[in-house]
């Protein structure tokens, strides 16, 4: 462990009005809703949830979405390009069916929400609060303001500081005692204005970064591999991009940052902690290895 490290990722920490259970999380869309994996075990860990602070759920939208046509996922040498298209069961089904099971399993969650208008974010936050306000395992909301795969909202939506602020402002009043995070897109020249907008709207922190817009070409056909041409690039290749964006936010805005982007190992996570993030999320690595976050947390002993 480096000499400057003096943290304990397993100790609860305060984020806005809420005490969050730990600093190693799984990223939205990378560990389902938190229901998968309970029957998976390894000689090292009884469960992939060992040492995990929070599961950020797959993003939920007001109505169910079937997602994009295939192919949706392309592996590239240092990462993956995806165009899943916010496939999800919709908020109502999540509240009725998924949330009670998450409570039974005691999975600590932050719920990821996406919508196409600020008012919808407000309505979703209200619905969540009305249904889940007594659930101890529900810790907060992460507004997905930057999913690049949705034609009607998506990337342009999250690039505008005024819109970011409006979405956060719409959700904030409905979440009096839960952490509110805005997940920001890196696909802008400067990310600090987006983080400042989230702060001004009342966010307790920002999550940075979402995937980087990318495209791959199928040389057999000469056409883009993904039907929608571009997708979201993730994995180890984007780690330096994420670090740069996080650094910009920490230095210029001073809002708590949850770092995400290419984190697979304790060393990767330490780079984010060195820049001052309050927590880290494991994304693509969690997909290929359900124990990635558990292993990372175990490799960061308290000091």
């Amino acid at each position, binding site marked *: 462990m480096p000499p400057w490290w003096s943290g304990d990722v397993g100790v609860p920490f305060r984020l806005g009005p809420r005490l969050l259970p730990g600093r190693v999380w799984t990223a939205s869309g990378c560990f389902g809703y938190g229901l998968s994996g309970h029957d*998976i075990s390894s*000689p090292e860990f009884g469960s992939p949830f060992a040492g995990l602070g929070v599961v950020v759920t797959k993003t939920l939208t007001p109505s169910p979405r079937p997602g994009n046509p295939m*192919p*949706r996922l392309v592996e590239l040498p240092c990462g993956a390009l*995806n165009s899943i298209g916010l496939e999800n069961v919709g908020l109502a089904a999540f509240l009725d069916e998924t949330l009670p099971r998450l409570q039974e399993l005691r999975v600590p969650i932050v719920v990821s929400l996406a919508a196409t208008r600020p008012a919808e974010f407000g309505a979703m936050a209200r619905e969540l609060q009305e249904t889940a306000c007594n659930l101890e395992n529900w810790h907060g909301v992460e507004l997905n303001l930057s999913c690049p795969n949705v034609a009607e909202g998506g990337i342009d939506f999250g690039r505008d500081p005024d819109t970011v602020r409006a979405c956060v402002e719409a959700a904030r009043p409905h979440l009096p005692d839960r952490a509110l995070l805005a997940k920001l897109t890196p696909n802008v020249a400067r990310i600090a204005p987006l983080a400042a907008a989230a702060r001004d709207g009342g966010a307790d922190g920002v999550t940075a970064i979402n995937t980087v817009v990318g495209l791959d070409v199928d040389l057999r056909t000469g056409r883009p591999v993904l039907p929608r041409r571009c997708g979201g690039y993730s994995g180890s290749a984007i780690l330096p991009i994420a670090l740069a964006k996080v650094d910009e936010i920490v230095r210029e805005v001073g809002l708590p940052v949850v770092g995400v982007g290419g984190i697979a190992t304790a060393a990767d996570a330490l780079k984010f902690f060195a820049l001052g993030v309050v927590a880290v999320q494991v994304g693509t690595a969690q997909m290929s290895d359900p124990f990635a976050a558990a292993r990372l947390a175990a490799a960061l002993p308290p000091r």
Partner: protein
Amino acid sequence: MSEGTPAGRRWLTGIVVANAPVSHGMRVIELELPEPVAFLPGQFAMLNLVGREALTFGRPFSILAAEGERVRFLYRIVGRGTALLATSGPGLRLSFFGPLGVPFPPPPADRPVLLLAGGVGLPPLQIWWERHGRSRDRAFFGGRDGADVPWSLIPEAWEVSVEKKDGLPAGREAFSGLVTELCRVRLAAGPSGPYVLYACGPMPMLRDAAALASEQGWPCLVSVEEHMGCGYGVCRGCAVPMAGGGHGLACQDGPVLDAARVDWERFDRSGGAT
């Protein structure tokens, strides 16, 4: 322990003990795991290199056999992952995540089973045959040519087809054509059914097998190949279009699916693995 109900999905680190060709185009890799694994025919495991060498995603392989701690997989070099697998010599560590997915069920009591295996689609049906095959069940294997067929893995009672007769070893016989054509010829000669059809192989073969079963009004289960990210349902990347809209996941709802539920036209267009 090579049979029975799997105890649960395990993430293990195995050591390569053998990795050798079994035909001109196919290889078998054998891992020694730290504990025995039980699996059902058609279930698969995700394999990957470990540490810094690990690929972004593991690769799914049907389990060919498991005896105690030893587990074997049949594969063909088709891309970067399988090319790396082919260079994984004895002593190398690989991660094993499995068993995963929905298996082929045991035979129904009321009718015989027709098995159609194509290329590296052999393992699920070979192991099914070993565990469940009855004298009235019939099985066919299709290969590219005589040299591509992994003869040592094909049960004696099976019939083999090849698209080209090149490289056919002395003493071996093979029908010239596609495995579905061989199947149709043999069915015409009787007994003509009714059967239930189980198929595993490349997309065109599965589509043809599904059509054959549909023409006859027989149930048909297919094991689909799709590119996968996670293998356990979280990445949503291995979507298979289903009839009537929507989709299932090859890793979680499959890989063994009811052929009548698959939207073959959309699946074909989306570039389902061939």
